[in-house]
C-alpha cells in the first residue's frame, strides 16, 4: 500500500468574534434565544404554542405565551442539511412527497420529538393562520390530531379584490378576539390592553426599522447583500413583537446607512447587476444559490419575502388589514404592483424566480405575474426549479445555467444602455 501522503494541515483563520453591539450579533442572539426561551418555558411547566409565521404575534406576545415557529424550525433544519432525512420520516408514514416540505419536516418532528439540527419545545396549543396558504390548515389539523392538543384557527382568506373589504375586517376581528378568549380559557391567561398597546408598539417599531433597512437597497451599490435579509428575517418571524427586536433592527438600519455613507457593503464583490429574488429561499442550497449570483457580481437586492414580515399600522383595524395583505393573501394585481414598486425603487435589472415545489400558491400564478412585472419594468425574467426544504427538488446545474442566462441578458442590456 502506498504510504499515505500527509496533507499539510489547513490553517484556518480564527473567526473574529462578533461585536456584541453589531446588528448581526444582536439579531443572531434573538433568533437563537427564540428557540431556547420556549424550551426553558416548557421546562418550567409553562404552555408553549406552535405558531404559523404570519399569525398575529400580538396575541401570544400580549398573553405572555411562549412560542415556537415550525416554519422557522423547518428552514433551520433544511439549511443544516437534515431536510431530506426528516421528509423521509413523514413519507414513511404515508405523507406524499408532493406535500410542502416544511409540513413534512414538522410532522416528522411531531413524531420523533427531536432533531439535533434544530430542536424546539413541544407545543401545548397550535396557533394557525392561513394568510400564507391553506396548506397550513391541513398541516396543523394533522399536528393537532397527532399530538392531541387544541388548535386555534385564525382564517384570513385569500382576497381576490385589490382592497380589503370591511366584511373581511369584521370576520378576522371576530376571530381575533375568539382566539384570545380561547387561549385565556385554556391556560388561565389574562388579556391586558396596556400590554397589547406596548406589544403593538414594539411590533411596529421593529417592522418600520426592518422595512427601512431593506429599502436601503435603493442605493447603488447596495449597502448589503440581499442574502443577509434571509438570515435576519428569522427575527421578523419569531420576535417582531419584542422590544429587543426593534432595537436590533434599528442597529441594522444604522449599519446599512453607515455602509452607504462609507461606500461599503456586505456584498463582498463588485456589484455588477441587481436582481429581485422571488419566492422562499432554497434553504438546503443557500450557499450554492448565493454563490451562483455573487460569482457573477449579481446582488439580490430585494425580495417580497423579506418585506412580508413587516407589519406597520396605526390602529386595530389597520393591524387586521395588514395581516389580510401579506403577499400570499392578495390578488395578482396587488402582488404585481408591490413587486413592481420594489423593482423600481431598488433599480432592479432582472428577476430571478424560484419555482418552489413546496409552494403551490406562490408558484401558481407566478408565470403570469412575472411576465407582467418583466414587461412593466423592462427587465429579463428567469426561473429555476427548487424547493424551500427538500433538497431532492433542486439541481445546481439547472440553477447555474438559468442564472448565467439571466446574467448574459443583463450584461447585454447594460452594454446597449451604455452605448
Amino acid at each position, binding site marked *: 500500500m502506498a504510504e499515505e501522503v500527509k496533507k499539510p494541515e489547513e490553517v484556518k483563520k480564527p473567526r473574529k468574534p462578533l461585536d456584541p453591539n453589531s446588528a448581526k450579533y444582536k439579531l443572531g442572539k434573538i433568533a437563537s434565544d427564540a428557540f431556547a426561551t420556549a424550551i426553558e418555558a416548557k421546562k418550567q411547566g409553562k404552555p408553549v404554542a406552535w405558531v404559523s409565521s404570519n399569525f398575529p404575534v400580538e396575541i401570544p406576545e400580549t398573553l405572555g405565551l411562549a412560542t415556537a415557529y415550525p416554519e422557522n424550525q423547518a428552514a433551520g433544519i433544511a439549511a443544516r442539511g437534515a431536510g431530506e432525512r426528516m421528509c423521509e420520516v413523514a413519507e414513511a408514514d404515508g405523507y406524499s412527497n408532493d406535500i410542502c416540505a416544511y409540513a413534512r419536516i414538522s410532522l416528522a418532528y411531531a413524531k420523533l420529538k427531536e432533531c439535533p439540527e434544530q430542536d424546539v419545545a413541544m407545543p401545548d396549543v397550535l396557533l394557525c393562520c392561513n394568510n400564507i396558504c391553506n396548506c397550513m390548515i391541513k398541516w396543523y389539523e394533522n399536528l393537532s390530531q397527532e399530538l392531541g392538543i387544541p388548535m386555534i384557527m385564525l382564517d384570513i382568506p*385569500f382576497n381576490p379584490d385589490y382592497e380589503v373589504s370591511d366584511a373581511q375586517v369584521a370576520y378576522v376581528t371576530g376571530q381575533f378576539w375568539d382566539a384570545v378568549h380561547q387561549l385565556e380559557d385554556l391556560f388561565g391567561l389574562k388579556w391586558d390592553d396596556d400590554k397589547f398597546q406596548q406589544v403593538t408598539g414594539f411590533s411596529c417599531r421593529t417592522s418600520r426599522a426592518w422595512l427601512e433597512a431593506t429599502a436601503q437597497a435603493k442605493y447603488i451599490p447596495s449597502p448589503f447583500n440581499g442574502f443577509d435579509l434571509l438570515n435576519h428575517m428569522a427575527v421578523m418571524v419569531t420576535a417582531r413583537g419584542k422590544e429587543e427586536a426593534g432595537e436590533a433592527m434599528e442597529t441594522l438600519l444604522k449599519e446599512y446607512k453607515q455602509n452607504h455613507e462609507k461606500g461599503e457593503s456586505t456584498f463582498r464583490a463588485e456589484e455588477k447587476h441587481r436582481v429581485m429574488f422571488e419566492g422562499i429561499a432554497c434553504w438546503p442550497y443557500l450557499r450554492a444559490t448565493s454563490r451562483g449570483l455573487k460569482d457573477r457580481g449579481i446582488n439580490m437586492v430585494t425580495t417580497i419575502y423579506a418585506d412580508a414580515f413587516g407589519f406597520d399600522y396605526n390602529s386595530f383595524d389597520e393591524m387586521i388589514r395588514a395581516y389580510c395583505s401579506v403577499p400570499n393573501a392578495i390578488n395578482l394585481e396587488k402582488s404585481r404592483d408591490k413587486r413592481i414598486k420594489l423593482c423600481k425603487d431598488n433599480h432592479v435589472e432582472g428577476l430571478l424566480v424560484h419555482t418552489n415545489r413546496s409552494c403551490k400558491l406562490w408558484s401558481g400564478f407566478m408565470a403570469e405575474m412575472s411576465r407582467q412585472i418583466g414587461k412593466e419594468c423592462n427587465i429579463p425574467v428567469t426561473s429555476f426549479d427548487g424547493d424551500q426544504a427538500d433538497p431532492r427538488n433542486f439541481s445546481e446545474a439547472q440553477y447555474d445555467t438559468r442564472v448565467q442566462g439571466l446574467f448574459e441578458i443583463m450584461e447585454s442590456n447594460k452594454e446597449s444602455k451604455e452605448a
Partner: protein
Amino acid sequence: MVQDTLKKFHEAATSPRKQMEKYLAEGKKVVLTAPVYTPEELIHSMGFVPMGAWGADMELNRSKEYFPAFLCSIVQSILEMGIKGGYKGASAIVIPSLCDTLKTLGENWKYAVEDIKFIPMTYPQNRKPDYGIAFTKAGYERVMRDLEELGGKYDPAALSESIKIYNKHNEVMRKADEMLAAHPEITAAERSDIFKSAFFMTKEEHTALVEEFLAELDKQAAGAEKIGIVVSGILTDAPQLNEIFDEFGMHIVADDVAAQSRQYRTDAPEMDDPLQALAVKFANMDNCSVLYNVKKPRVQWIVDTAKARGAKGVVVVMTKFCDPEEFDYVMIKKACEKADLPLALVEVDRQMVHFEQVRTNLETFRDMLTF
C-alpha cells in the same frame, strides 16, 4: 326501463358541450361552477344555468403557460378548456378559493380566458360562528353583484324557490346513493354517469330523471353480490378507472367523492332570509378535505359508512398533487388500520392515459378482499 334512463345519464355526462349548446340555444345564460362548492342556488335563482366545470381528461398544453407541472390536473384542465374555447358561450365562471390551487386558477383565468368573466367566491373556514356566517353571506353578495352586471336579478322569493329545487335534488341524490348500494348490477361506470350528469343538466331536469330511474330500479331485483367498497377522493369519473372497478367486480356501496355525494349531504334550512339560509347551509357542511375541522370527522365518517354499508374495503382515489386530500389520506389510513378495514390507494390525474398501475393495485386489492 332502467337501461333507458341510464343511457340518458350517460349522454348528458359525456356531452357537456352539447348540453351547453342546448341551453344557449334556448336563450339561457350559462354560468360555470368550479370545484368544490359554489352557491349554485343563488346563480340559479338569478336566471342562469349553473354548469359544473371540473375540467376534462385531456393533454395539457396551454395551461402550462400559466401553471407549473405540480399543480392538480383538474384545475389545470379547467384553464386548458377555457383557453381552448371548450367553455365558449358561458357568461362567467364562479371559482371558490377553497384550496391554494383554486386561488391561483382565478388569478390566471382573468388573463388567460378574457371572454368568460371570473367571479370569485370567498368562503370562510371558520364558517360556523355568527361572524363566519356573516362573511359567507358577504361572499354571496359579492357574487350577486357580479351576476347583476351580467343581467341577473336578485329576488329573495326566487332564491327560496331555487333552494327548494336544490334541496329536492339533494334528497334524490342521497336516495340514489342509498339505493345503488343495494343494486350491485348497476356498474361503477353507470353510477358515475348518474352523478356526473348532474353537473350538466338543470337540477329540475336531473331530479326528474333520477326519480324516474329510482322508480324503475325499485322494481328491479338486486343483482348478484359483488365486492362492496367505499370510494373516497375528489373526482372518480375517469372511464378507465370505472372499467377497472367493474372488471374486478367491485361495487361502490358508498362514496366520499367531492364530485359526487359530498355535493348533496347538506340542505339549506328553511328561513325567512334565503341568503342567510344559504350561508347557514355552508356553515353546516363538513366531512370534506377543503372544509376546516380540527377533529377531522371525515375520517371516522368513512370508517362508519363503510361498516354501515357492509363494505369490504376502502379505495382512496387520489388526484395527483391534491394536497388537502394527501394530508387527510394519512389519517384515513390510520383509522382504517385501527378499524381493521382494508384500504387501497390509487393515484389518478386528468392527463392519465395508462391505468396499468391502478389496475395492478386494484387487482391485488381485490385478491386481498376475496382471499
